[in-house]
């Protein structure tokens, strides 16, 4: 399994959520973040003094998935989050040794399979 860390512009966050639901990853965990990269900050004025805003707001998704799904997810995320403008974000792929579903104790791929309870 893999653990994806997806960083996108906040305005694309709803799209990513929908894309992930459609693919059926079973879920995601979402965090507000700030980022910088090729995209630099910009300068603002406050009470006549100027200052640098050196980061931009981003949304970070943690998604656990089967190895096979990685490609699909990357494609789907790129589709909705790629505006062609600098600062669109990155996808980081890391190895996931194990997952546990707290409620049931299921492990491995079972733990992230969408289940039909309720």
């Amino acid at each position, binding site marked *: 399994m893999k653990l994806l860390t997806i960083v996108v512009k906040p305005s694309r966050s709803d799209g990513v959520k929908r894309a992930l639901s459609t693919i059926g990853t079973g879920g995601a965990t979402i965090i507000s973040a700030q980022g910088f990269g090729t995209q630099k900050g910009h300068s603002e004025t*406050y*009470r*006549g003094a100027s*200052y640098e805003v050196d980061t931009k707001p981003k949304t970070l998704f943690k998604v656990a998935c089967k190895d096979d799904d990685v490609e699909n997810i990357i494609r789907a995320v790129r589709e909705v989050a790629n505006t062609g403008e600098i600062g669109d974000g990155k996808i980081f792929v890391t190895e996931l040794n194990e997952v546990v579903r707290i409620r049931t104790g299921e492990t491995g791929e079972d733990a992230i399979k969408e289940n039909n309870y309720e």
Partner: protein
Amino acid sequence: MSELEYALNTFYLLISGAFVMWMAAGFTMLEAGLVRSKNVSEIVTKNLGLYSIACVMYLVCGFFLMYPGDSVYNAYFPMLGSTWGITLDGLTFNSDLGYSDAADFFFQVVFVATAMSIISGSVAERMKLIPFFLFAIVLTGFIYPVQGYWKWGGGWLDAIGYTDFAGSGVVHLCGAAAALAAVIILGPRSGKYSSDGSVRVMRGSNIPIAALGALILWLGWFGFNGGSQLAVNDAANANAVAQVFLNTNASAAGGVIGALLIAKVLTGKADVTMAINGAIAGLVAITAAPDTPSGGLATIIGFIGGIIVYFSVVFLDTVLKIDDPVGAISAHGTVGIWGIMATPLSGAGAFGTQAVGAISIFLWAFITSAGTLLVLNAIVGLRPSEEEETTGLDASEIGVEAYPEFKD
């Protein structure tokens, strides 16, 4: 004067005083909105505390110092006395004064608190609570009443013809001069100016409550200026009070427009914090003579006040490196001077006398405040440790976060 006239005047003074008391909420909201969230509980506490201290000190000695009647031994330092025991039994139909002595006291006491409120904003985020309150005791019990006596108590400034209807000088410049002394002695907030001379911007944490503060001040100012006519029992007085209301409002409006316009032209953005300072500037500017100008002239006096406050804020902050988080020194001090000097525009006061008034009030408040603060610094220390300042004074002084659930 009939008893009914006396009663109307008294009622009018009391309502005016209640409006001025409301300015305490204005300063509290303004300052709470313009500091960083880690110092919000602290500045709220300072404002509640300073108002309360002002009320007690003025009752203990301030009022009597400022209005000593015949017992003054000279025109510079009035004699000490007390109004602590003021009761209903002592109040009679005082038709010379034209209103109840108790109403007079109430109307005056809220002015003292206003002067002190100006200071809390300027020293925000870096002055410890205890020395601040000790300084409040000295300012409200002694520094303010003495110069108040010079003008309103019948002292030498009054004698030479200095004009100051509701206190551009006596209240606002006095408070701002004390604030300037405090800010110079304290130094800027830690991290505000880097060694390379660059300025670090420290943004206000809550703009809508800062704007609410300005609007509360605007409302309260109708009591501040409107009440300073001190009588509304006949047509002449009623007309004067009405003109004061009209002009106070017009000048504040002018101040907002002036500050917004200059900000938009110079930076491309209509900086709302400047609009807020502009409103206050307009109010301060008209306070020295709100009765004499026409509505149009009042608007222009305020408009110029709004432009002055813009440049004053930027100049103090980026050139002089005088760190005044809420712009109080500019809005009440620089613009206070403008207000005092602008009275001749509508035929009230003479240029030279006004200058004497402005200079003497400034020097008195600046020097006595500086002296007091240096003594306090030596004894209890004015500033928290750098660690405490970085963490925020809410943690070290108050123990209550202002917004514990909102991440920063």
